[in-house]
């Protein structure tokens, strides 16, 4: 199953959740936010939210700026 993770197409296992995608990018939980198709998914719901074919998953963190 293909999803778009931070702008790049990637193949993930069927049944993958937002939590799986986040953990594939970073071990951090604190300071990280995730959105699927521009809707924020609260941390508490990461592992209960499956991703679907062609979903856009964005995983963001705080960086130096401003």
């Amino acid at each position, binding site marked *: 199953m293909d999803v778009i993770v*931070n*702008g790049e197409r990637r193949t993930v296992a069927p049944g993958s959740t937002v939590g799986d995608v986040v953990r594939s*990018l*970073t071990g*951090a939980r*604190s*300071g*990280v*936010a*995730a*959105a699927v198709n*521009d809707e*924020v998914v*609260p*941390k508490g719901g990461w592992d209960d939210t499956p991703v679907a074919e062609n979903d856009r998953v*964005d*995983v*963001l*963190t*705080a*960086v*130096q*700026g*401003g």
Partner: protein
Amino acid sequence: MSAETTEAAGAAGTAQDPRRAADPLVIAGRRFGSRLITGTGGAPSMSVLEEALIASGTELTTVAMRRVAPGTQGSVWDVLQRNGIAPLPNTAGCFTAAEAVRTARLGREALETDWVKLEVVADERTLLPDPVELLDAAERLVDEGFTVLPYTSDDPVLARRLEQLGCAAVMPLAAPIGSGLGIRNPHNIELIVEQASVPVIIDAGIGTASEAAQAMELGCDAVLLATAVTRAQDPVLMAGAMRDAVRAGRAARLAGRIPVRRHAHASSPPAEHP
């Protein structure tokens, strides 16, 4: 002079000065001992940034939200957490209200704060605020329960509109972001200060310590700066200079400066010559 008197009369704004302790910066009911808010962009390394933040005495610091780059070691979030500095996520890089609202929501989720430095700029060349998008975004974020600190132009009318929408502060620019041009229109800043009933925080364009002091002397409640420190030849030294400048400027504002006179006014009694 006793040690106590020396302290009270000494450098404006030493932590021991009781008048300073009673003069916190209050934004949306939250109190800060420091009136210097720092940004984090442009530092040569994370360790220099950390030293500079500590030297600045800041208690509130802006960060940007960006996509996670795999394998990144050490984050600005860790630096803020271990130094007890509150994060102020911004919406830097947003050109529309819709983008800014989305970014603000991500910042709230990531950093567990509903405070946001709202930044909606018109174009890459000037990075000046887009007033139409800014007002739209501010209204939506206030409605969603955010504590909104908008980066705005030095337009007193726009500042008033932002305050009327429910923003917790207004943050007019001194000059364009990163320019170090200093306060280009002190008169407008004074007008904004006169009318505002929320804190006025000068944001962007400060180049050196005297300009930070000037902002405070004009009556601003705080100064927000990043580049002036992070891109200084010695960021840590400049961070300390800014801390002192903001304290000195605040003390001078509270002390009340003398009127400007066109002619000399003797400070000694008239001489009596025999």
